[in-house]
């Protein structure tokens, strides 16, 4: 560590290494930490935008009858909530973490392609703004669901081409981000850091980046075919012209299934980073975690039609996609067992990041169980497109991806800011979130099994009770997230006032390189490679 500081001083006379002043710093920055911050702040802001849309939905569903919104606006809200959360909140937040942490974890001075890094962030902003602008267009925002199924999608008003162009921009942004991650990891690891010595967060992001490069062009292709069907008289998805609307679903889910793993693989990486630190033990099976991640990524490409079991497939297709989907349970089980074994006989403490991580393991596993149930094709003929699936994928996204993003925030904020967050409010935030997220989503299992379809603005009376409970949970969960904003701002402005050490968490430097640089992390880290790689834990 002393080496780093000395090196920094050498260059101090020549030119200023610090950030530019003012707003231009943020617009033109090519620094991985600045761009990481931009991504994280943007992701958090969009989390609240998407969350507000979710609360519109839950308000309307609080009671049977239509109270607040028109059904079409309701459909716009479900569509936009999904798009904003997926492309505006979760994915950007993980790219933000990648930007901040990957160079610091592999001992690199920055990302491999810093200018492209800047471009991919601002393209993301452009894409999301374009998407948001559709809310104010004639006919309203897209309302055919985030999956854009034809022919329904053609009934959207003026927003249709704008939403598709927005998807193109988001896709280009994601691909550039993914290329950057791959180039950085393959070319800029510190000497001695072989692939199998990389922290798991880096591994999971490497695999995620390959997923993104493989699927984003497929998605772009699918929506472009929609565009030409609507405006240039092609009929890819129109039976009258020899096309097939189900073809779109195949293409979409070939993208869509890996896409949901894009949101969960980095989550696995962060959980595998945090749990060993607070259990004071090495991760139980590093190699098997890497292989399990690879296996899940591979399987994600060959299971897509389990999203469409009821679409009318031949028996052989149903059976194949059922078997392939069931297989995912094996590597996912390996991961859960690994986290459990890592805690086993550890010396655990329960700071906020650990609390969120443990809740992640438990609640993600619940989402995994319902996933396993739905992988069984014949029973999915009952579950499909009901609130059961809504409960399933929210369990794998909210108390999984979102909880881990919160955990990552608490875990690395002290490193980023040099200040300690308020542990008391952090724990309050955790308990409010963990309890309310279950009040919010658990009753949705009941609703789905009892027969409530998803994406409806009004429902039969027998669904009233659990919808009300779910909506109450939604409001508690939504508003308690404001605590996180308070904590982040408070920590940036000094937090508890206690100056944190380089290591922040006990023995964290044994686990990963970022804990060997000063806190807050200087604007440039690892201008020269680290002298020593923490290897004893792998």
């Amino acid at each position, binding site marked *: 560590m002393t080496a780093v500081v000395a090196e920094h001083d050498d260059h101090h006379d020549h030119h200023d290494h610090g950030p530019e002043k003012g707003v231009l710093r943020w617009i033109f920055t090519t620094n991985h930490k600045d761009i990481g911050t931009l991504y994280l702040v943007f992701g958090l802001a969009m989390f609240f935008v998407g969350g507000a849309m979710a609360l519109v939905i839950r308000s309307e569903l609080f009671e049977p009858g239509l109270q607040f919104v028109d059904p079409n606006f309701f459909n716009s809200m479900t569509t936009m909530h999904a798009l904003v959360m997926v492309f505006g909140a979760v994915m950007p937040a993980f790219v933000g973490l990648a930007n901040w942490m990957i160079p610091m974890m592999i001992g690199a001075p920055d990302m491999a392609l810093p200018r492209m890094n800047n471009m991919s962030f601002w393209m993301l902003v452009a894409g999301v703004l374009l998407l948001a602008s559709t809310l104010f267009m004639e006919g309203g925002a897209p309302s055919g669901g985030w999956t854009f199924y034809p022919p*329904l999608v053609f009934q959207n008003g003026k927003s249709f081409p704008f939403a598709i162009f927005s998807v193109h921009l988001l896709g280009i942004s994601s691909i550039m981000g993914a290329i950057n991650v791959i180039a950085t990891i393959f070319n800029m690891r510190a000497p001695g850091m072989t692939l199998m010595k990389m922290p798991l967060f880096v591994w999971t992001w490497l695999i995620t980046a390959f997923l993104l490069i493989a699927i984003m062009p497929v998605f772009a292709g699918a929506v472009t075919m929609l565009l030409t069907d609507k405006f240039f008289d092609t009929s890819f998805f129109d039976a009258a012209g020899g096309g097939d609307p189900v073809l779109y679903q195949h293409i979409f889910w070939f993208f869509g299934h890996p896409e949901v793993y894009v949101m969960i693989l980095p989550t696995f990486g962060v959980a595998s980073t945090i749990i060993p630190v607070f259990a004071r033990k090495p991760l139980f099976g590093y190699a098997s975690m890497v292989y399990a991640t690879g296996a899940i990524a591979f399987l994600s490409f060959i299971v897509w039609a389990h999203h469409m079991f009821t679409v009318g497939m031949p028996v052989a297709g149903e059976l194949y996609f*059922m078997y392939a989907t069931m297989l995912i349970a094996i590597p996912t089980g390996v991961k859960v067992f690994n986290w*459990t074994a890592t805690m086993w006989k550890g010396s*655990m403490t329960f700071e906020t990041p650990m609390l969120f991580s443990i809740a992640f393991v438990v609640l993600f596993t619940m989402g995994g*169980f319902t996933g396993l149930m739905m992988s069984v094709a*014949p029973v999915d*003929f009952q579950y499909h497109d009901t609130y059961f699936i809504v409960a399933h994928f929210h369990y794998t996204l909210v108390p999984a991806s979102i909880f881990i993003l919160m955990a990552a925030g608490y875990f690395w904020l002290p490193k980023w800011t040099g200040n300690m967050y308020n542990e008391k409010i952090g724990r309050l935030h955790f308990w409010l979130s963990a309890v309310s997220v279950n009040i919010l989503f658990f009753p949705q299992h009941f609703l789905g099994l009892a*027969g409530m379809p998803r*994406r409806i603005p*009004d429902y039969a009376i027998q669904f009233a009770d659990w919808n009300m409970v779910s909506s109450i949970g939604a409001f508690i969960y939504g508003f308690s997230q404001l605590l996180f904003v308070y904590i982040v701002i408070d920590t940036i402005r000094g937090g508890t006032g206690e100056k944190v050490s380089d290591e922040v968490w006990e023995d964290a430097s044994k686990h990963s390189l970022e804990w060997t640089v000063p806190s807050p992390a200087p604007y440039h880290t690892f201008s020269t490679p680290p002298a020593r790689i923490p290897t004893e834990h792998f």
Partner: protein
Amino acid sequence: MKKTKQLLACLVLMALGLGTAHADYTLNLMKGVTQLSNELYDLHMLILWICVFIGIAVFGTMFYSIYHHRKSKGHKAEQFHENTTVEIIWTIIPTLILVGMAIPATKAVIDLDKVQDSEMSIKVTGKQWYWEYEYLDSGVHFESHLDEASEKTHRDSSMDPRNVPNYLLNVDKPLVVPVGKKIRFLFTAGDVIHSWWVPDLGWKKDANPGFINEAWTSVDKPGTYRGQCTELCGRDHGFMPVVVVAMEQDQYDAWMKATLEKQNQAPDLSDQTRNTLMAKGESVYLKNCVACHQIDGNGISGWFPALRGSAKVTGNMDQLIGFIQAGTSKMPAFKKLPDDELAELITYIRNAPALGNNVGDEIQPNKITPKWDDDE
């Protein structure tokens, strides 16, 4: 401390939530009324219990560890990691469980597909936003729309859905089937993708425009079984229920005979009083027009034009008839409407206070001359 307080508060809120609404609810899948739905229910319960069992084992281990292996209790961390034997075991056991699940699941997939040897066929067409049923063997066909009480209530926030029996799960004309007969369903759609689901039958099937899907059922018990469209199909996706009434064979035969007779009857074109025209016209409007033009005739800005004060509606009657029968690029052609319903509808939309129109005229069914020639 804080944690318990929050838990308490949440429980109280949940109790409040439960107290304000009184309706029967279920927590689990229903067994349903077919062999297939029973088979799927058993499969569902099997997998549910497997998940519960694994959950107890994994979470039990984890919580034991969380309770005992904590620093505050002075537990020292052991530094073990990587154990090939353990890792092989926890890969093989789940694999075996999966194989055990796959066997009954495979059988169920094959059972779901057994549409052969059916005794009758019904074609189901999903349309925005109602179902069309056609009994292929007898030629009986009709549309099945959301019932009027639900239709009015969901469009009027001052009305309480709790007063409507089977709110949103009732239709004007249910699909009637005989019990104990193997029925083959053929699914297709007229506009966008829909999905036909009755939980008690055990499955749902997508209705894709331009393609035909198959499914089968054989209902064990007479009764009324309710379901909904489960594929997002636009604005009124939540308002196109499915109702199946299963009857004993003799009752079914009687129903079939009566329905067929009614279908083959020419529409009654005799003169009606103005009040009758208006009252029936409202029903026709609620069934065919309200989804787009809305209950107050205001349409939806940017999507569907208003009828309130529209020159097309209140202007030349002959042009209006032609317009409704021919449709436009956005509005379907309503040439399917018989002359009596058309006359009722036109009288209604030109004069209904609810739509804000008051032309002061009427048209009788026998005065409707075809403005739309069907020769194509």
